[in-house]
């Protein structure tokens, strides 16, 4: 009995020690977790219940030169997956795509693309959700079914009027390449992808804010800890004049509606400083379609459309200038001292150079007869310019055409401008490893052959002739407001200044004035504005040779029509507007002059403080559909 008690007492003592040891072990464990590793677990607890939501900054508004809104923002809803609170990503994707009524594979692709990013950064599935989608997600969230899906109100780009699509450009989710190139961009950002939105993205983008919220275990927001308001992007004022822009768009619309031409471009400048007053490329796209993430179908149709609506014809299209090139040839002849304004050529309707016959557009009427420089421009005499070109030579033509802005980049503040071409002996040697043949110069004299120009360079060409030799740099940005008031942006310096003998220039201008206001076989009378001295020049360029025309019989008639040009400045003395209208397959320069008429009519109506002309109608335009020789 006593022995038993003693034994039991020893065993109880042993138990006591075991218990005490276990409790000491527990105390040490808690010490390790709570004191030694406290910082680590505290951070984990914070991450658990705090969530940082990015507040997207609205992009800066864009105004026209008179302060009218061109590009603004609207509120939309984005729907994204916050993987930090996802238990089963696959399940979330499945349910979410059902709820949203979108293709599950598409959602998976989006998630896959962002997979390697930190989990706290939500993956936007829909940028611009419909109210029905928002309601459907909200209902599921109430059931705790989608705790990891976030619906956020975000500002989205809005282009109130369908105009100048290529000028404004569009925005879209930043690509991986863009992130690699610019450290300020992060995945999921919306950045400019085209046009001004792209070029001035750093001004327009603004700085995202953030909101730190407390969420519970099912992702419901409990309260806001702190909120950092987003900084709106800088506001930009453009040189664009809404009225001029609208006039251009309206006139092009009539040309398209009437079946004359559904493609083309126009660039209108202030020749004194290079400010762009109006700018279009047709056909256009709707930049609004990109703002909330473009759907695959729309994107595919934009890319496969034969008319290539995504191409900015004003700065990327290269076309033969046709007769509009004649002033460059004239200037070369005059300034090189090879001809004078009174130099005369007799035009029988055709002429023979280097054993080949070259025709004038008046050949069937028997030619112009004897013409001087002014009349040669006014009536667009081809024989005259064949002759002058032959006398001047290709390299001097190249020199003066370049000085006027042709065959070189204009330097406009838009992305991906392409360069036109005015050939030279050196160019041919370098590119084609061949000697230039004098016979090739003849066609160049009337803007055919190897010459190709972009519409924007034609606008610069006109501005240079209008201002007396300053090759201005076309530009779109006038002022910036970073929140502290408007500050003027210094205009880019001119590319080149040449000295032109005013008397010689005046002869060219006289000829251009006569194109619109003269008598005889003039071609630009449709651009005439009563009470204002408009100077201009038509041009038509063949799209296809006579032989090719037969071969391409299966093509539609419209695709075989000549392109129509009209270049202009006004008023002749002290020009304040200069530019170009180009109608792809527009048949005649005269049709482009009709479009120009509406633009100039609007411009002068503003200057004269009379009511703006109403949008033109088919009846106003009197399109010339006759497939005449010039």
């Amino acid at each position: 009995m006593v022995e038993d008690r003693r034994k039991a007492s020893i065993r109880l003592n042993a138990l006591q020690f075991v218990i005490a040891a276990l409790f000491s072990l527990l105390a040490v464990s808690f010490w390790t977790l709570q004191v030694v590793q406290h910082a680590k677990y505290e951070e984990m607890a914070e991450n658990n219940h705090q969530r940082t939501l990015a507040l997207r900054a609205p992009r800066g508004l864009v105004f026209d030169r008179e302060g009218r809104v061109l590009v603004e923002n609207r509120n939309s809803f984005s729907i994204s997956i916050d993987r930090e609170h996802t238990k089963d990503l696959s399940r979330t994707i499945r349910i979410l795509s059902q709820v949203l009524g979108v293709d599950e594979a598409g959602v998976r692709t989006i998630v896959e693309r962002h997979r390697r990013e930190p989990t706290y950064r939500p993956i936007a599935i829909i940028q611009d959700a419909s109210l029905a989608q928002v309601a459907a997600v909200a209902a599921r969230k109430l059931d705790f079914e989608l705790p990891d899906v976030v619906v956020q109100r975000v500002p989205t780009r809005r282009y109130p009027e369908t105009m100048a699509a290529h000028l404004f450009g569009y925005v879209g989710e930043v690509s991986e390449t863009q992130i690699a190139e610019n450290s300020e961009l992060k995945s999921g950002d919306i950045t400019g992808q085209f046009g001004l939105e792209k070029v001035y993205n750093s001004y327009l983008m603004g700085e995202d804010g953030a909101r730190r919220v407390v969420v519970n275990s099912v992702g419901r927001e409990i309260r806001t800890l702190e909120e950092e308001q987003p900084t709106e992007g800088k506001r930009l004022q453009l040189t664009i004049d809404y009225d001029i822009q609208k006039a251009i768009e309206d006139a092009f619309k009539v040309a398209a509606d009437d079946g004359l031409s559904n493609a083309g471009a126009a660039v209108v400048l202030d020749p004194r400083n290079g400010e762009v007053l109006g700018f279009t490329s047709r056909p256009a796209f709707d930049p609004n379609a990109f703002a909330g993430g473009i759907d695959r179908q729309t994107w595919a149709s934009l890319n496969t459309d034969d008319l290539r609506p995504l191409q900015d014809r004003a700065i990327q299209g290269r076309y033969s200038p046709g007769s509009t090139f004649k002033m460059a040839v004239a200037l070369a002849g005059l300034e090189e001292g090879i001809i004078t304004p009174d130099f005369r050529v007799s035009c029988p309707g055709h002429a023979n150079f280097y054993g080949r016959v070259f025709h004038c557009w008046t050949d069937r009427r028997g030619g112009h007869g004897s013409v001087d420089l002014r009349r040669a421009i006014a009536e667009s005499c081809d024989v005259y310019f064949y002759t002058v070109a032959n006398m001047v030579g290709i390299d001097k033509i190249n020199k003066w055409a370049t000085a006027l802005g042709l065959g070189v980049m204009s330097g406009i503040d838009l992305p991906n401008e392409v360069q036109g071409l005015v050939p030279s002996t050196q160019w041919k040697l370098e590119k084609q490893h061949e000697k230039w043949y004098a016979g090739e110069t003849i066609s160049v004299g009337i803007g055919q052959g190897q010459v190709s120009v972009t519409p924007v360079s034609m606008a610069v060409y006109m501005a240079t002739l209008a201002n007396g030799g300053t090759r201005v740099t076309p530009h779109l940005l006038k002022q910036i407001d970073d929140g502290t008031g408007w500050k003027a942006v210094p205009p880019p310096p001119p590319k080149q200044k040449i000295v032109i003998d005013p008397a010689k220039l005046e002869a060219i201008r006289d000829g251009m004035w006569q194109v619109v206001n003269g008598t005889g076989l003039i071609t630009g009378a449709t651009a005439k504005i009563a009470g204002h001295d408009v100077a201009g020049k038509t041009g038509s360029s063949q799209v296809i040779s006579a032989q090719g025309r037969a071969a391409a019989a299966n093509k539609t008639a419209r695709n075989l029509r000549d392109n129509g040009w009209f270049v202009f400045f006004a008023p002749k003395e002290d020009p304040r507007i200069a530019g170009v209208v180009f109608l792809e397959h527009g048949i005649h320069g005269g049709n482009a002059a009709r479009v120009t008429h509406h633009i100039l009519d609007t411009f002068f109506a503003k200057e004269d403080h009379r009511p703006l002309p109403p949008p033109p109608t088919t009846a106003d335009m009197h399109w010339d559909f006759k497939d005449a020789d010039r």
Partner: protein
Amino acid sequence: MFERRLYHHIDWALVAAMFALCAIGVVMIYSTTSDPTRGTSHLWVTQLYAIGLGILAMLVTMTLDYRTFTDKSHFIYIAILVVLVYVLFFGMVQMGARRWIPLKLFNLQPSEFAKIAVALVLAKFYGENRGAPQTSDLAIGAGLTLLPLALIAKEPDLGTAVTLIPVFLAIAYLAGMRMRILGIVFLAIVLAAPVAWTFVLKPYQKSRISTFLDPSQDAKGAGYQQIQARITVGSGGLSGKGFRKGTQGQLRFLPVAHNDFIFSVLSEEQGFAGVLVALGLYLFVILRALEAARLAKDRLGSYLVLGVLASFSFQVIYNITMSAGLAPVKGLTLPLMSYGGSSMIATLAGFGLVLNVRMRRFTN
């Protein structure tokens, strides 16, 4: 029956420590369940009722001589078996388990009372024997334990079932079971483990074990509670986040915070300081009860105390280890603190017996 002088032998220190733990429990239940944004919950009031009933049960188990209970232990044991069988067939199903008999105020969980019954019956069985228990005695004791254990495991409630094992082991140990046998049992378990791993365990059971060893393997699934428990405890720090300021418990990252994980919540809100106080109180309660076992007038008494204490200590240590994310998550409550009526009443009733043994150490 209850002599007035016995009153002076009540271990007031033990009583005070127990009720201090109960009070901490009620406060933590209040903290985790009364979310003002979701309407007030009265779980803490229910817990107070349970404590009240527990005190009544404790008075009953204190007042009658513990030998009265051990004498009737076979009836109590059989009654509990009957109730456990009843539960298996007619019990209320909650969360996939048939464990409860619905009563008006709360649901009665008979398995909690099975611990006392087993402690009583084993105390009596070994208390009547002289000398170290023979193999046959051990087999009978094991059988008496395994019968209710199997019934409870069938509910299924593996956690509570397992708490019966320490009751048997502790009493057999104190009764003089040879250490060699204990050693053999442990050795057998160690040797069986790799065999069981290869042939017996099902894939989900394996994954549960490997998840315990490395919770981050499956941070959103099985490892979730364990990681959350560690975060909860670790983020509490030295002095805690403050009453009702614990983000983990309050925002429900931690499941069943008022129940199985109440100690985690205490760690989060009161920090290491609070942990030390609670650990100290539990250690005091256990050591004080061991003292009662040592002082007991007869073997029967010390076996009874140790039987009651064994399941209590096992649960306390396991639950606290689990609430720090250091043991696999099993549905085991923390006696005296966790929310739950049956557990509270059974625990207090059990400690009534402990007090009973101690205060009758001088009587005949």
